[in-house]
Each structure stands twice: as C-alpha cells, then as structure tokens.
C-alpha cells in the first residue's frame, strides 16, 4: 500500500535564554498508508501537535524529511494543500461570523464550489444552526464546524487533532461512523486523540509518540500483541489441585502467581502447552483465559504515564526511548 504520509527523522528544537533548549521533536518517524484510519497518540506535550503543525507548514522544522501524498513538504505544500484537510488543536474561528459564512469564505479562498458548504454542514449535523454566529456555539458544535472545514475540500488525506473534544456521546459515535465511512470511500484519516478506546475501535494502525520520538507503531492488533505480557489465567476443576499445578508449571519454567481460586501465569507463549502439561499430571483445566491488553494500558506502559499514587506527574515526565530501533516496532518507517 502506498504511503500517504511519511516522516523521517523530524526535529524541532525550541531555544530560550531562560528555559534553555527543548527538543519538541527528536528524530520522529511516522508512516501512514493510503485508505487507513491511523491513530496518532501521545501524552500532553509529547510533540503530536508540533508534528501536525510542522507537516502542514505552520512550523519550520530543524531537520528531517516529510512527504504528503508523495510530495516533499513544506516545499510542495501549495501543490498538495488542496488535497489535505486538517484541523489542528482546538477549533478556532472568527466568533462573529456564522458557520455558513465561515465555510463560504474558506471555500472562496480555496476555490471550492459553494454547493460543497451545504454538503459538509449536513454531514456534520450543523445544517439547521448554520446561520448562527460561531460565538454562540458549544465546544462540540465548534468541533463539528472544524471537521466540516477540513472536509470542505473533499480531501484525500484528513488530519484531525482531537476531533472528539467536547462532543457528546452521540456525537462521538457519529464521528466514529463518519471516520469509517470516509476511510471506506478511500480517504486516509489521521486522528490524534486521547480517547484511546475510540482509537482502538476505529483505527487500523497507530503511532505512539513520547517526548518527541516514536515509541510504537504499526497495525493496532500487532502493537497490542507486541506489548501483551503473555499472561494467562488458569482455573482447575478442583481448587485443591492448585498447589500441584503450581509445582508442575514452575518446574516447566513458567512464572506462577497463586490466587485462592485460580493461578496467574506469565510468559506463556502458547496457552495450549499449559493444558497439555497439566493434563499429563491429571490436572484438568476448567478455564484458560489469555489476558488481553488494551491500547490504554499499552499507551501508559510505553509512555510511562500511568498514575502513581502519591505522585504528581509533570507534563514532560514520560518515556524517552534510546533510539529509533526501539522494541515493539512492527512495521513502517521511511522506505519500510
């Protein structure tokens, strides 16, 4: 599948006499294939928005290469801008214009047919409120308007920074459906979000960034698999058999944690080997359940941002990886 978005070794450094030097992006890599819904995750201050702004020509990078739709940016931005719809960070519009005026002015600037304005207003559910001034809108309505402005160009690549911000549950579900529909129509969607359950539900692949570097990337299920601990929960027909089972499994080199009515095993590659081993000892399994990890726990583990009781984590306290070839990488990268 051709890459719609590729970033290699992207660097952005902010220098301040008072606060010194801070690497917002420290050799960041990313790849998004055509037709995918791609999740872009990272803790606050990790460099997500800086990446998107740099990609869209709003921030000048200090190093690295970027392409959008096969064209090197920022040089080719005037060529590709008409095919890339984007909202960056919170939606911002002139508060005294109506939604229709706002979109109509953008359509005029981008030479998009005026009929497209009503189409996107319908699509994001703002048709009946389109004549009202933006300053009367709720955050969720502004978010819908922002998505509408990004869709106005009917882009090949849609980049949305926190699109579900401020949306009600119904709105989040509508947004999810919209993203899937757009992807099915051939549009590539890059979603930056903190709602990891949503990302896991709608994204085909993810990139996780921490302190300006990529810490994981690839298809969602592969990232989850790479970071599952191989934990398995085992229950036996008779609770009295648990000590014998513990002894047999420990002898086989499996780490076992005992509980009153079950055992937790760690480092199990093939759960079938557990049933075979126990059966050979005449111990019969009533439940064998691999413990699934979700994106949230992988994210917290990779970025080291899980809350610790009694500690107040600061914004920049997250995982710093050693190099570009970090464990957990499954695919992607420049030329991969």
């Amino acid at each position, binding site marked *: 599948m051709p890459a719609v978005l590729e970033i290699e070794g992207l660097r952005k450094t902010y220098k301040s006499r008072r606060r010194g030097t801070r690497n917002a992006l420290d050799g960041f890599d990313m790849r998004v294939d055509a037709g995918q819904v791609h999740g872009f995750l990272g803790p606050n201050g990790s460099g997500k928005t800086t990446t998107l702004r740099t990609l869209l020509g709003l*921030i*000048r990078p200090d190093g690295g290469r970027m392409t959008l739709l096969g064209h090197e940016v920022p040089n080719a931005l*005037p060529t590709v801008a008409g095919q890339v719809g984007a909202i960056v960070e919170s939606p*911002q519009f*002139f508060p005294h214009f109506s939604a229709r005026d706002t979109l109509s*002015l*953008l359509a005029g*600037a981008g030479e998009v047919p005026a009929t497209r304005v009503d189409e996107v207003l319908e699509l994001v559910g703002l048709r009946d409120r389109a004549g009202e001034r933006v300053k009367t809108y709720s955050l969720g309505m502004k978010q819908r308007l922002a998505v509408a402005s990004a869709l106005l*160009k009917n882009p090949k690549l849609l980049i949305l920074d926190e699109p579900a911000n401020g949306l009600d549950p119904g709105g989040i579900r509508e947004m999810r459906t919209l993203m899937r529909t757009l992807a099915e129509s051939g549009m590539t969607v890059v979603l930056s979000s903190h709602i990891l359950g949503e990302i896991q539900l709608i994204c085909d692949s993810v990139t996780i960034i921490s302190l300006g570097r990529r810490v994981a990337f690839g298809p969602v299920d592969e990232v989850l698999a790479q970071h599952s601990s191989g934990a398995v929960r085992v229950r036996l027909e008779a609770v009295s058999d648990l000590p014998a089972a513990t002894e047999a499994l420990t002898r086989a080199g499996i780490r076992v944690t005992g509980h009153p009515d079950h055992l937790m095993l760690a480092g199990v590659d093939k759960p079938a080997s557990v049933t075979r081993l126990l059966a050979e000892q005449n111990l019969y399994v009533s439940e064998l359940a691999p413990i699934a990890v979700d994106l949230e726990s992988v994210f917290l583990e990779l970025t080291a941002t899980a809350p610790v009781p009694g500690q107040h984590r600061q914004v920049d306290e997250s995982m710093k990886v050693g190099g570009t070839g970090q464990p957990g990488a499954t695919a992607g990268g420049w030329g991969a």
Partner: protein
Amino acid sequence: MSLFRTELRRLSKRRFTRYMTLLGLLVLAAVVVGVFFTNQKIGAEQLARAERQADQQYQDQVRWSEQERSACEQAKKAGTATDGRYPDDCSVITAPPREQIEAEWSLPSTFNFRETFDETLVPFAAILALVGFVVGASFVGAEWSTGGMMNLLLWRPKRLTVLLTKLAALLTGILAVTLPAAVLWFAGFWAVATFRGSTEKMTSGVWQSFVLTGLRGVALVLVLTTIGFALASLGRHTAMALGGVVALMVVGQFGLGILLSMASVKFAEAWLLPTYALAWMTKTVTLQNWDSCNATYYGECKPETMDITWQQSSVLFSIGVVVILGAALWAMRRRDIS
C-alpha cells in the same frame, strides 16, 4: 484572484469595519453640516448690518474716551494719585478714527470655497486615516488572534501571498470608501459655499491644487491603513497596533514634545510626526524659533524659520512604510504559527 475576492468579502462582512466606516463618515458629515450652519452668505443686508455695528462700536469708543478724558482731567485737578492709570496729557485720550473700525469685522462667518476648502482636506484625511488605521489593524489582528489566519494558511500555504492579498483587499476596500467620500466632501463644501458663502474666482489652477491636495490626503489614508495592518500583523493582535500608536503618541510625541520644549530645542516640532502629516497635506509647514532675532533692513526682528516640505514628509512616510511592512512580511515568512 479568488483569494482577493474572498478577503474583500471578509472585510466587508466584518461588523467592526462597517461600524468604524459608518462612524467616520458620520463625523465627516457632521463637519460639513456644522460648517453649513455656522456660515452665512454675505449680501446687502449683512453688509448694512455690519456697517451699523461698526458705527455703533465707533460711538461706544467715542463715549468711552470722553468719559475717560474727563475722569483724567478731574483726577489731575484734584491731584489724586492715579497709579499710572492716566497719561500725563489727558488730551491724548481719544477715540480711534471711524475708518479704523472696519465693517468687515462685524460680518458673519462665510465660506469662501477658494480660500478655505483646502484647509478642510486636512481633517478629512485625518479622520479617514484614523478609520483606515484601526480597520486595518483589526482586519488582520483579529484574524491572528482568533486562529483565522492559521485556518487560511492550511488552505493557502503561501504566507506572503496570503498577507499581501489581505493587504491589497484592505487597501481596495479603504479606497472604495475614501474616493466616493472625497467626491462627496468636495460636493458638500461646494454646496456649503454656494448657499452659505462664495464660489467665486475658482480657476482651473485652483481646482488642480485642490485635487492634488485631495490625492495627497487619499495617499495619507492608505499609508496609515498599511501601517496599522503591518503593526497588527507583526504583533499578531489588533492591540499591538492600537497599543503601539498610543505609546508612540503619548510617550513618543507628547512626552518628546515636553522634553524638547524643556530643553529649549530649536524647532521642536520638527521632531513630531503630526508636523510631517500637516506638511504633507499643506505642502509646507514653516516652523519659527521665537528665541532668535533676524534683523531686517527695516529694523524689524524676525524669528528664524525652518520649512518642512511635503517632499521631506514623503521620504519619512516611505521609510516608515518600508520598515514596518517589511518587518511584518519578514515575520510572516520566518516565524512559526502556533
């Protein structure tokens, strides 16, 4: 071209633009109406009334001088101390000759188009320049502070093209208001002169001079509009331009004026910007140094003078526009947008 048309639409849709333009035009209309009602046409009746008033003044002077002369003589006879109130010779207390009290002094104010119209072009240019400055600053400043500029750059990534197109649309919009307003200003004062004054002695040379002054006024409006726009773009906020001007006027002009005056600097006004704006409009402003004395052949003491010309003003304003607009363009090209 589509971006230019869109920006022109954006400018005309903004409420601030509409309200400020309306306010500026209302002030201009108020000036014309005010001049209309404070002037009168001079006819035989007004001349006769003025003559009567001059006679009355002469009679008052005669009566007063006689009273004073007799009081003076009584004081001399009584030998009362007058503390220098009266001269030694009481006969010198006389009324001025009748011909020295001119009837013209008692004439009502009248609007002579040939003599007065060019003076009205100064407030015309000043009011519209102020409107242009704040509208220009707000047009781009609000775009920056509300995120509109960022949205636009996601559609049109060529930053300089975007900023210059916005400026071109703004100047077109201001010109579209200023030129008809100038025509109405000419027409308004022509009407004032027709009904409340005189339109005599209007030669083609006078008309040419008025038109050229009007064009210089339009240029001043465009320059101030550009500077307001560029300052707000540089600071990425309307307040940057407005605050900058307040600071410049209060600290840079009033403060500097007081300081120069205290230091007894010669031609202190030469350091103040309004002098150059006035010179631009009136072609020349002559500054005088009252502390000096240049003796003439007739023994008079004339103060030293210094002329500020419209050419000097044009150099100053050109440099100002190039520096401020250049800085705004440089910042637009180089600075990150966050």
